[in-house]
């Protein structure tokens, strides 16, 4: 698809992932054992034959830059096209951050124009799904549309969290409501768009002049262009997850461990590519046992793992039991440890005889909005001493050292420096 440029919005922090996105942006968070969230969208692009990709980054982009690099794992290291990371920049007159999704695209008009595309696909870097964007673009062309929005039917009770569309029989969008209190339809926008480039360029230039606008596609641009009568909905049926909260992130990971997972990582015709560290195959020892789980390369499993996602290079000691948890790369778990309903971020070390995620749920004393489930979260590069006991919904920050024998009740927290809030 030489006439299409894909733009992946990867600038958001993802505040609702708490400590997981304190040091890295949401698209760079690990997912499914060896991937990072943005891999799914990037792989969709190349699997759909789109090799002209811009990644719009803003929040703590270093890891994202390192991960994507020149795009080698996705075959995006090309002479023509390839992947470009687009960060905010300063000009002679001013230097500004991306003020919104639409502004981010507006500020990169020159980049897009270089390719002289007919269409642009605007994507989000924090969704888990596989979609053939070429079908999406051809649908857009066949409708003679100026803009097409991918959408999915969601349960009506969930509809108030999305941009909701009301369409006619031909899938033409008649009305669009951003996060309505009383939704009149259950057709939700996935935040995935195709635009005719010449058309949307003018709209973006107009919008940039509008001081009152938030410069957001869902909030400002889409309502504005509905009046053209050429905005269509592309019905998407398939697996799609926005892993924006700790609970949804945890659930989407554990969904992969089901006997017949709703999302198929094993499809040889739709591979998910990633940059991963070179590691040897996983080893399960005499004392190890693994059920209903995903185990990545470089793991050494001496304990019992059930219903969990274990990333690359994780070591689990003898007598330890891991249940319903997500362990990210190079987490090291000692012996006789119990971990339940937890997310443990990369490089953390859990000392012997620790118990994590025990007891009953209690409301978070740290941040009720972010930590609103039973999941206990431990940040990156943290060290948990021996014999610690953490309840449910506990949060431990990044780079902290928890002394041996520390007990944290459900809903509690441990950060360096701010343990009294």
């Amino acid at each position, binding site marked *: 698809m030489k006439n299409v440029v894909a733009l992946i919005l990867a600038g958001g922090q993802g505040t609702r992932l708490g400590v997981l996105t304190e040091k890295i942006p949401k698209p760079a968070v690990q997912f499914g054992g060896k991937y990072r969230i943005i891999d799914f969208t990037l792989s969709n692009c190349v699997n759909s034959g789109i090799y002209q990709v811009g990644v719009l980054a803003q929040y703590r982009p270093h890891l994202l830059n390192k991960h994507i690099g020149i795009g080698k794992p996705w075959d995006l290291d090309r002479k023509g096209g390839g992947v470009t990371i687009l960060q905010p920049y300063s000009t002679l007159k001013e230097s500004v951050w991306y003020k919104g999704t639409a502004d981010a695209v507006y500020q990169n008009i020159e980049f897009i124009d270089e390719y002289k595309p007919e269409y642009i696909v605007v994507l989000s870097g924090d969704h888990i799904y596989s979609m053939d964007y070429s079908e999406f673009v051809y649908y857009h062309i066949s409708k003679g549309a100026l803009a097409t929005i991918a959408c999915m039917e969601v349960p009506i009770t969930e509809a108030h969290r999305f941009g909701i569309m009301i369409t006619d029989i031909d899938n033409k969008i008649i009305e669009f409501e951003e996060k309505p209190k009383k939704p009149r339809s259950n057709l939700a926008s996935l935040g995935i768009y195709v635009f005719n480039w010449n058309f949307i360029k003018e709209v973006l230039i107009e919008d940039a002049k509008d001081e009152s606008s938030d410069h957001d596609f869902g909030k400002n641009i889409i309502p504005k262009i509905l009046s053209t009568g050429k905005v269509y909905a592309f019905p998407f049926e398939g697996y799609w997850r926005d892993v924006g909260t700790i609970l949804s992130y945890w659930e989407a990971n554990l969904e992969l461990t089901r006997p017949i997972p709703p999302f198929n990582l094993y499809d040889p015709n739709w591979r998910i590519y990633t940059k991963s560290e070179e590691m*040897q*195959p996983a080893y*399960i020892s005499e004392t*190890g*046992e693994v*059920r209903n789980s*995903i185990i990545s*390369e470089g793991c050494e499993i001496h304990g019992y793992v059930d219903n969990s996602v274990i990333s690359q290079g994780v070591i689990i000691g003898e007598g330890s039991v891991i249940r319903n948890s997500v362990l990210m790369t190079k987490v090291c778990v000692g012996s006789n440890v119990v971990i339940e309903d937890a997310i443990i971020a990369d490089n953390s070390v859990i000392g012997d005889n620790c118990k994590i995620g025990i007891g009953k749920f209690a409301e978070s004393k740290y941040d009720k909005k972010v930590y609103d489930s039973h999941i206990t979260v431990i940040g990156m590069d943290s060290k948990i001493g021996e014999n610690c006991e953490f309840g449910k919904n506990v949060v431990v920050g990044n780079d902290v050292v928890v002394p041996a024998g520390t007990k944290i009740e459900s809903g509690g927290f441990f950060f360096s420096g701010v343990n009294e809030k």
Partner: protein
Amino acid sequence: MKVLGLILAGGRSEALGKLVHKRASAALPVFGKYRAIDFTLSNMVNSGIYKVGVLTQYNPRSLMDHLGSGKEWDLDRKHGGLYILQPYLGMTGEYWYRGTADAIFQNTTMLRRGDEDYVLIGSGDHIYKMIYNELFSYHFEKGADVTLVVKELDDTYDIKQYGVVVTDVDGRILEFHEKVENPPTRKAFLGVYFINKYLLLDLLYDTVPSGKYDLLLDVIVPNLSRLRVYAYEFNGYWRNVKKGILEYYRINMDVLKREVREELFLKNGKVYTKLKDYPPAKFTGTAKVSNSLVSDGCIVSGIVKNSVLFRGVVVRAGALVENSIVMQDTVIEEGAYVRNAIIDKNCVIRAEQSLIGDFEPVVLEKWMVV
């Protein structure tokens, strides 16, 4: 100091039977995701050698496929990088490589063109991890002309299959005994040479045109008294996959030992190999795996004991795999029983069927269905 790496990967091996019907021994799959040549190639890259020539001849397709442009080893470079040196048709004649010395002799352009001063010659069949820089220092300390890497082999090796050296106290090699019964020492040559490039050129021109084609026996050994040939001792894990099916089987099983895994994968740099982009391995509710290596892309629902599963292997519920090596994308269906077997790539063991080896493991060729 710049070093040119040469990897000898052209030889045929009768001892490996079906495993090498369609591949060079250097391309033999080992340890779940690697091929034998990955070790020497990674060792060279980890030692800072970024110009490597691979000499191939026998059944090179799978080896070529594996090496590609060399990008997995960071050998896709403007300067240096990976060179595949195959026998070719020339104005003066057409010859297969008639021996190791001849193979290098036919590629002397590669030697003459570069700005390297030294040549490190290794083999694609050897499994070991080594940073060669210490070998280089040893070579200069001793003022050696040629340094050969040797290792004291214990009795798990069949010593009469190896060439051994006799050295003086300083480490200079006095005698060489190639594959003899009751050799005088157990210090075996590991197939790694370090030599000055111009000296190598001289030696090759001195011997190859007169019809002597073996680098070790025709070039180095006859010159032991004239040249200062030293032995550098290596003490780590070292095995040769070419020695036979049983040896190949044992090498793969060695990786189930913690100390071997640690030495091969966690020390002295990484081992690089061709990426396949398989998702992580998946274990379902009926899986029972113990003392086994499981690679990416596997889906395990059955019982697996003391085995090595390569990438993309599927073991269905009720199947039992014991003491076996199962290569890429093979499927073991429901209720099948596999014991003491080496199953090559893309095979299918149908439901309720069994494949059992006894003293020597049974070998199933690529694409077979049982």
